[in-house]
Structures are given as structure tokens and as C-alpha cells.
């Protein structure tokens, strides 16, 4: 398994009158084909670490390598481009665009990347959604779907540009048990099918047990599982 994502001694301090340390001196390594869960109490810095690993936020100190490239000197546009090409995100609240259909939501990242012609974008998105059991919902809007279905659309969107790593922030936090199990299996499936890594923040111990590895974080520091 190849290392696809590595953080080395990253610290994130929020500038304020009394500066707040969200993440302190964390080093982690993620390899392709791995399903890694980040666990910890509320406010421990799980999501902050995920945003840093997903290049949505920039560490105050430390470095992050993605696919072997040091991203510490990247500007905002370069980071956006890397996210577009190599990362996919799933959030607790599905965060789909309400005015667009299910199919359009999945096509959007492909259209921005422009790696495939428009017809192929639609074909790929349709196939992706069909794989996740959403073939009958392509032209529906997000508000016409159940919570579990929306989250699967979000996973399909995260997979759209064939990312190296999928980062999920409490993807089942807002779902019932059955839907939660379904999303968990879908994420597991994407790891096995695409040999890509999944890093997910979760409170759910059962979800965490399904992962290959658990990173425990307390007060912004990794206690176990780097």
C-alpha cells in the first residue's frame, strides 16, 4: 500500500485574543486502500484535523504531503485544484446543492475538472449513482430524497473525479441505524473497489470498528493510532 496522505507535526492555532489550539503537533500517515476512522470526544479537534488533511484549512505549523507532494507552499488556487483532482468530501449534513438534480450534483465536480467530455460526465455520474442504488432518482432534487439517499449522493459526488482520498466528517451522524449501516458499507465498498483511502470522523463506535485503523484524538493531540 502506498502512502497517499501524510501530515507531519501539524498544529492549527486559531488567532484570537486568547489563541485557541485546535490541533497540536499531529503526525499521521494514510495509505491507499485504508479505511481510517478518527475518534474522540466532542471539541477534541477531530473535524479540524480532517479539514487540515483535506486541505480545506492550512496548518499554522507543520507540513502535509498529498500523493508525495508537499502542499505547505501552495496558494489558495493550488489547494483548490488539488482538492478538485485528488480529494473528495462527505459531510454530516449532505451539503448537496438544492437547486440541482441528483445527477447534476454529481456532474458538477467533473464539469469543473473538465477531464471528460460532457456526455461522458453524465454517463459516469449515472453509473456511479446506479452503483450506489440511486438509478431511479437521477432527476430528483435533494429534498425529494431520504437522509440516507442524500448521503449516498454526497458519496457519489465525492467519488466523481476518482479521488485518492475521501474525507468524511460524521457521515452517519444525522442518520438512523439502517441508513447509517448502508452509508458505512458504501464507504467500505469504495475503499475496496477503487483502492483509495477513506478518512472519516465518527462518534459511532460500531462505525469505527468497521475501519482498518482508528486514530484517537484528545485536546487536539493524537493519543493513539498515527
Amino acid at each position, binding site marked *: 500500500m502506498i502512502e497517499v496522505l501524510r501530515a507531519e507535526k501539524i498544529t492549527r492555532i486559531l488567532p484570537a485574543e486568547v489563541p485557541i489550539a485546535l490541533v497540536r503537533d499531529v503526525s499521521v500517515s494514510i495509505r491507499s486502500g485504508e479505511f481510517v476512522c478518527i475518534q474522540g470526544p466532542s471539541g477534541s479537534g477531530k473535524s479540524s484535523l480532517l*479539514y487540515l488533511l483535506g486541505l480545506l484549512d492550512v496548518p499554522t505549523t507543520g507540513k502535509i504531503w498529498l500523493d508525495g507532494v508537499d502542499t505547505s507552499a501552495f496558494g489558495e488556487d493550488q489547494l*483548490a485544484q488539488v482538492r*478538485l483532482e485528488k480529494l473528495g468530501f462527505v459531510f454530516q449534513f449532505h451539503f448537496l446543492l438544492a*437547486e440541482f438534480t441528483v445527477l447534476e450534483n454529481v456532474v458538477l465536480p467533473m464539469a469543473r475538472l473538465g477531464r471528460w467530455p460532457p456526455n461522458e460526465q453524465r454517463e459516469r455520474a449515472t453509473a456511479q449513482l446506479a452503483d450506489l442504488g440511486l438509478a431511479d432518482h437521477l432527476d430528483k432534487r435533494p429534498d425529494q430524497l431520504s437522509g440516507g439517499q442524500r448521503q449516498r449522493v454526497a458519496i457519489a459526488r465525492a467519488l466523481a473525479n476518482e479521488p485518492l482520498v475521501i474525507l468524511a466528517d460524521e457521515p452517519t451522524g444525522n442518520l438512523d441505524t439502517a441508513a447509517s449501516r448502508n452509508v458505512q458499507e458504501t464507504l467500505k465498498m469504495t475503499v475496496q473497489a477503487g483502492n483509495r483511502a477513506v478518512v472519516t470522523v465518527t462518534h459511532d463506535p460500531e462505525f469505527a470498528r468497521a475501519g482498518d485503523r482508528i486514530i484517537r484524538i484528545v485536546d487536539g493531540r493524537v493519543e493513539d493510532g498515527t
Partner: protein
Amino acid sequence: MPLGLRIALTHLIHRRRQTIMSLLGVALGVAFFVAVSSLMRGSEADFIKRLIDSAPHITVSDEFRTPREQPVMTAYPDGAIALHSLKPKTETRGIRGYKQDLAFIANLPGVRVAPVLAGQAILTFAGKEQGITLNGIVPALMAGVSDIDNKIVAGSLDAVAVNPNGIVIGRGLARKLYLNMGDNVSVSAQTGQVRTMKIVGLFETGTTAVDEVQAFALLKRTQALFGRIERANKLIIQLDDPYSARDVSAIIESHVGYRAESWQEAQQSLMSVLLIRNIIMYSVVSAILVVASFGIFNVISTVVLEKRRDVAILKSMGFHARDVRRIFLAQGVVIGVLGSILGIGLGYGLIAALGAVRLQPPGMSEVVNLPVYWGLDQALLAAAFAVLSSAGAAYIPARRAGRVHPVDILRGGMA
């Protein structure tokens, strides 16, 4: 279709009510801009046309722009000379040797010229007296420099050539003194000379001041009446290109020496008024579009606030800040373009309605349609201004959207 435009259109379509209100704001602004501009430019063109048609393009008068230099000044240019109690030589007023000047001017390309001797006279009929301006003319030449021939409603201008005692008067004057064709009137000049003249023509220009005051007679007869033999006090010039009047008048003045005044110079103060009027008009109608652009600013600012979550999602997906900016900027431009198209259609409808309005301006005897201008340039100007102001109004919120930090929104969950 570019992705940013696709997203922008989706936003606009899903916020139908606000989009329609913004579109209406721009459309009404553009429509008023086009309609008011059309009315202003139409009236300006009509005014200038009346000015050009009714007045000479150039008038050479029996005056000098600067007093003639005294011979002693020419003889001793560096000398300390003082002249006191200078009295100009008494001579018959008018352009001396006007026939030579006439010949020179007539030889210029695209120029038609006619001599006129104009002066005050009193027309008496049935015990009533009326002051008139009697114009001594050469009918054959006058036809080339004045449209008075087209305003004749009875008789003809040429009749004064056939009947040297003939006079052509305005219908307003005829009504005032109960005069008819063929009536004999008495015309007396300031010199004391009195002639009996026969009415051989009536004209009607529609302008009361002309129709009640101006009269035309043969030049030779007028010269005799005014005691100014071989004199004309005006050379009336019409040009094929009225807008070359300034240049041609300079050439004529440098040759004949007398003051040659172009219509632009004669109406300089009026032209300044027109310019000021245009500045005021464009400021006011542009203000309408600026107000409309404030509406767009408000709408797009609200959209940006409401779509902060969508912006965060797009940025987390890998959309650049400039992609996000373009989405919101495109919304402003789309509103500007569609509003302009709608507004131009509406504006030309308004022009048609205004153009159909008929009225009788004060001082005019004829009923006329409101003068309007149909040119496309005013629509293009309005559209350009509307699109620019819409894009400008969208730019600030679009820039704010581009600066949204996705983590700030994503941390807040459903916020």
C-alpha cells in the same frame, strides 16, 4: 455553456421573484433612458433642422468683426500714436461692391448665395399701420437659399420680378389687416419715401413672429425705397453641408472683409443651452439605472448571504475563488443583458407612443407630432450603461462570495 453561467442561471431561475424584480428595475431604467433620450435628441434635431431650414447657414452682414485699422497705424506700426475724436466717414450703409462678393461666394463649391437689403418699413392699409421688416430680394437667387418659396400659400415669389411694385407678405399680417391678394398697400420707409405696392403673394411659415412681420419685395425697388442704391446689407448663404458653415464662413470673411456669421456662431448660446440640457438629461436618466443597479446589488448580496453554504460546498469540491466570483458576477451581467433587451423593446414602444402625440407649440400655428429620435445608438448606450452598472453592482457581493472560507461555514453545520 460555461459552468459558472449554468450555476448562475440556475440560481436566477430558482429565485424567480427577485430575478423578475431586478429585471424590471433594469428594464424600466433602460426604457426611460431610451425614451427620454429619444425625446431630447428628437427635439434637438428638430430644433436644429428648423434653425438650419429657416435661417441662413451663413449671413454676411454690413459690419466688421474688428474696426478697420487707421492708415496712420499701418504707416507707423512702432510709433507712439494717439488718435482723438475719430469720426468715421458718413456713407450709405450696406455692403459696398456686393456684386463682386456675390460672384466670389457663388463660385465656391456647394454654396448658394442671394443678396438681401432688409430694413424697417411701415405698411399702411385702411388707416391701420403695421411695422414690418421689408426684405429686398432677387427672387431667382432667393429660391436657392430660402425655403420661403415652399411656404407660399397664394401667388408666388417670382411675381415680384414680374411686377416691380409687388410685395409678398405673411398670412398672419394679411389676417391682421384684412388684406387679400391683389390689394394695394402703402409702404413707407424711414427715408420718408412712400410706395404703393400690390400684394402678389402670401406665405405661411407657421411661426407667428415671421408671418406677421416679414415681407418681400424686389431688391431694386427696396433699394430705391430705402435710398440705398447698389447696396445690399446681407448676403444670405446656404450650403449643401450645413455643418461646414464655420469653415466656409471663415473663408468668406477673410475674402470679403465683412463679418460672415455661421448659424452655429449666431446660435452659440442656444447650442450651449442644448449641451447643458443634454448633460442634465443624461445625468437624470443614468440616475435611474444607478438606482436599478442598487436593487441588483441588494438582490445579489442577499443571494450571496443565502448561498454561503453552497459557496463553501463548491470551494470544498475544488472550485477556485475566481469561479465563485464569476458565478455571482454572471448573475449581475445576465440581469443587465436581459433587462436591457426587455428595456429596449419597452423603450421603443414608449417612443412610438410619444411620437404619436400631436400638439401645437406656443408661437406656432401648425399642429406637429412630438419629435422623436429612432437611432439605435441611444439603445446601445443605455444597454452598455445598464450592463456595466449591473456588473458593477454584482462585483462587490461576488468578491465577498469569493472570499468565503469553507471551513467557517462547514464547522457551522446547517448554517
